């Protein structure tokens, strides 16, 4: 069993505020790992450290075998990343986006052409390959962005709320794409606000106030908290009894 992501006591402070407080976990190769938490719990800060965009204050993390503090460039070359907010260039066509990202990832022209053809074929985007990305429906943009993030066959792919606002059928198709890349050995690190999607992960962690408050397979986590659904677990961790806000009481 190969470890794709290895996080030890990872911490990040901003002034006196500790955004991420000594989190530790590992994710094995080919695993689908759901990284959950409330808004402001520290998820984004943690992801920025894992993709080599933000230096940790203390602790270590290795992603795809590279240390995020000392080998951030190597980390970035061996991962894929997509989010709902930033994915593709809207003004470029489908094919132009593939060529652009292929170049950024250092693929050869023939690799870009072959993998681009394969990607367009798999997504059945043949008729749209010369359309500007902005003309595609959101669900298709997201499927395309995921495929582009996989162009260089990264060891680990980070998906930050990839399905927000996507229709319920396309959302499920997106998860089938996730399963497919995971079965081929790519490690998938995904955040979502849909707790039904958290059930699709091999394991999940739930962050609360900068710390990991729960981790394990969804069934284990539910069992440990004596909850029927992950929604219940989440509610219990984020709003423990006694500190409920007035409107939730």
């Amino acid at each position, binding site marked *: 069993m190969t470890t794709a992501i290895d996080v030890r006591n990872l911490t990040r402070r901003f002034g006196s505020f500790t955004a991420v407080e000594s989190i530790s976990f590992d994710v094995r190769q080919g695993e689908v790992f759901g990284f959950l*938490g*409330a*808004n*402001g719990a520290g998820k984004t800060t943690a992801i920025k450290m894992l993709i080599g965009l933000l230096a940790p204050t203390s602790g270590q993390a290795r992603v795809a075998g590279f240390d995020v503090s000392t080998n951030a460039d190597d980390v970035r070359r061996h991962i894929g990343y997509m989010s*709902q907010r930033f994915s593709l260039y809207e003004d470029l066509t489908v094919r132009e986006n593939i060529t652009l990202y292929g170049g950024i990832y250092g693929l050869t022209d023939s690799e870009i052409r072959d993998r681009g053809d394969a990607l367009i074929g798999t*997504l*059945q*985007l043949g*008729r*749209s390959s010369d*359309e500007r990305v902005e*003309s*595609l*429906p*959101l*669900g*298709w943009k997201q499927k395309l962005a995921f495929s582009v993030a996989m162009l260089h066959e990264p060891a680990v792919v980070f998906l930050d*709320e990839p399905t*927000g*606002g*996507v*229709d*319920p*059928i*396309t959302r*499920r*198709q997106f*998860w*089938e794409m996730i*399963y497919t890349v995971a*079965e081929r050995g790519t490690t998938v690190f995904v955040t979502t*606000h*849909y*707790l*039904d999607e958290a*059930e*699709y992960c091999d394991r999940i962690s739930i962050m609360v106030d900068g710390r990991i408050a729960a981790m394990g397979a*969804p*069934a284990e986590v539910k069992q440990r908290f004596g909850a029927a*659904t*992950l*929604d219940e677990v*989440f*509610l219990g961790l*984020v*709003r423990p009894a006694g500190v409920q*806000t*007035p*409107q*939730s009481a």
Partner: protein
Amino acid sequence: MTDHAVASSRAPLEVRGVSRRFEDTVALSDVSFAVNAGELFGLVGPDGAGKTTLFRILTTLLVPDSGTATVLGLDVVRDLWAIRSRVGYMPGRFSLYPDLSVEENLSFFASVFGTSIDEGRAIIAPIYDQIEPFKDRRAGALSGGMKQKLALCCALVHRPEILFLDEPTTGVDAVSRREFWDLLGALKKSGLPILVSTAYMDEATRCDRVGLIQRGRILAVDAPAAIAARYPNPLLAVHANERHKLIQSLRDYQHAKSVYPFGDEVHYSDARTARAMDDIVAELRTYLAGSGFTDVRVKPISAGVEDAFMELMGQPEAAVKAAA
């Protein structure tokens, strides 16, 4: 002013046959529904369904190509100035002044409508009480949940007669979403009619009635339970040891109509509407056991709004727009 006399007997919001295009894109196609007095009405559909276009028409910021709509009995095209002062609108994007403080934003919105925070106090109190401790903080420095509450206060401070909320819970975590809906429930008790849009199917059950919308068309309008009850096929929740394989095997089953993962289960709908449920359950168990699955659980279930939405939308959106 005769309009007002007529208005009193009307639903606070009526939309009749509204269509709107942007060049070759059909944003709204023959949309009709009404929001009744005191009703919390949800417009439920994915991004790109036309929800924001409809909100912009109903708040008089955009004119429909065809069809009519009345808000508080006033026509959205002819009576735009009269409508604007009487509705509250919270747009999907955060649209407050990030460099002004919480209190300054609220004062500004109150003054635009010729009122003051004190005059609007009664209606905003349940929400404003939670953010008042931060009234001197810059709006841009608030957390997501607090920004949302401030935006709601700004939409309410002039005591509107109807409230329009465009995707207030997008990008918001599950707990904050639940709290926001609790707030809407409290507001509804004051009798304020509310039209709220969302891409989260699970939020439909918090509404009195919903309109399901996809690609500019209304798929259904009714109470959430009534929409779910019209689901046409036998529906079963299936669980087995290997979910991804289970989905594929169920799709290969000769009587499968649709197979979708739902949390830790898979929802299977059977194409045979006349077959007895007990028989379907027994046959499916036999099929799955024969396919090598263990830990198989099969149970008949009632459809939810998300099942109904997927059934009604039929096909996911195509990548290529159909030739108009």
